[in-house]
């Protein structure tokens, strides 16, 4: 059989490909150095700048049309986060009644009369000792600020179609969550304990494990970020939702069953950490997962329908062509 020639033997290389590769390498080095020296980037502006640099590197040497798409995508992306941030203000102005006892009652129903936050802290938390699981839980908690952003940035650069599929689901999740923050402003467990005293004492020790790992700069940034956060946005838990969202999106690409199972342990770890830190009720996490499931189901159905509609249009032509 005659030898076939690979495409790269015939088609010239894209010189910008190597420029982009070099740019990504420099970006990775810079990101790691920043992380070690100053901490993790979590505030929206810094995250936006770092993602922006990454995406610009990914678009170096691309045709103008791709840059045009990028500008449009960026506008949509900014509008999405703007709505998310503004929902905090809308929640204050809308004046819906704060949910204080309802989530506690649901959790008690689910756990046969026990408050899971109080139980888990009573059995595992020690204010004088930072256990290994405190560090694991803390790191798990803070992955919320990195994983979705990395996924969005990588998809943005590698496949616009996959990015659009990801963002449809992500934006839907965020939209519904924001609506719930406004309509069901829910008091988190730590506030229910410290201000309303409807459950036993809870320590809010989220950053302790991370701080013990030597990442002080980041912890300070995070505390500052919390100053302007919406404290009564417990329902649904976006931490819990994102921890399922990212693995669920990439799950079809993972082949080994054991690895799929391992990846799906991550949302469980996240929810356990959230409950342990007193940041969320269990029901917040479950509702977050439910919204992820609904978002994936809806967009999966919609995309399959699109395929069917387009295929049917083509078949009508094929049939008509034969008839003619």
């Amino acid at each position, binding site marked *: *059989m*005659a030898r*076939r020639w690979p*495409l790269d033997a015939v088609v010239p290389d894209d010189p910008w490909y190597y420029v982009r590769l070099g740019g990504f390498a420099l970006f990775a080095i810079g990101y790691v150095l920043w992380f070690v020296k100053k901490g993790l980037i979590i505030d929206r502006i810094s995250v936006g700048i770092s993602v922006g640099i990454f995406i610009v590197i990914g678009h170096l040497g691309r045709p103008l049309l791709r840059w045009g798409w990028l500008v449009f995508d960026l506008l949509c992306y900014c509008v999405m986060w703007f709505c998310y941030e503004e929902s905090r203000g809308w929640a204050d102005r809308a004046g819906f009644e704060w949910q204080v006892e309802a989530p506690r009652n649901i959790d008690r129903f689910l756990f046969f009369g026990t408050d899971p936050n109080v139980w888990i802290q009573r059995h595992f938390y020690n204010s004088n000792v930072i256990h290994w699981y405190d560090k694991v839980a803390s790191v798990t908690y803070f992955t919320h600020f990195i994983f979705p952003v990395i996924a969005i940035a990588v998809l943005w650069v590698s496949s616009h179609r996959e990015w659009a599929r990801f963002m449809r689901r992500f934006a839907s999740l965020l939209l519904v969550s924001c609506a719930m923050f406004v309509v069901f402003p829910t008091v988190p467990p730590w506030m229910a304990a410290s201000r309303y005293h409807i459950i036993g004492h809870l320590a809010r020790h989220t950053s302790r494990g991370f701080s013990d790992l030597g990442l002080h700069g980041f912890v300070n940034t995070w505390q500052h970020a919390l100053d302007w956060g919406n404290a009564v946005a417990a329902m649904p838990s976006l931490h819990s939702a994102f921890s399922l969202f990212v693995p669920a999106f990439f799950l079809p690409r993972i082949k080994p069953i054991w690895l799929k199972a391992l990846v799906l342990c991550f949302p469980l770890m996240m929810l356990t950490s959230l409950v342990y830190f007193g940041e969320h009720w269990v029901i917040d996490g479950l509702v977050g997962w439910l919204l992820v499931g609904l978002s994936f189901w809806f967009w999966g159905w919609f995309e399959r329908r699109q395929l069917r509609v*387009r295929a049917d*249009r*083509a078949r009508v032509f094929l049939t008509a062509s034969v008839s003619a």
Partner: protein
Amino acid sequence: MTRPPRPKVRKVLLDDSFVNALLATDVTEHADARALYGQLVDNYERGVDRLFALSTVLGDVPSEFRRNALAPVETVHVAAQHRSAAREVAAPISPEAALSLVMLRRERITAVATATHVFDPLEVEVLSVAPRVDDGAAAPVPDGYVAFEPADFRPPDSEAISSGTAPMPAPRSTDE
């Protein structure tokens, strides 16, 4: 019961000759092109294939065909840099075919549906509706390939050319 593993999605470029054969009822490859396209559309609906065509090709297609007959086909946008790269393609083939080669590589498309044998000597999956070559007959490879072949290059034999290797569409009833 275990679910069968999901096949990897194949990206198929419909080149200008294939689109022409599909839409022009008076060309000899029309029936085969229509049958092959029917299979590709079925695969598209099952999420197995993604179909592409160059913007330069789709730009010449009447909008009615684009919206209906070619509804499953995604546009691969051709820019000046791609045309420039096409001029440097190391094969004396038509500018359109060279552009297809460039976009195959840049967009990582692994299969091409065509009504020619231009792509036969290349490592891409060729779904050709060009006339079959009988065993022992000379392969209808474009003459130009001889010019760019390296020392050990031989024109592909009949096993290697597309009509012999690509899955041909099953015959269809004309009643459908």
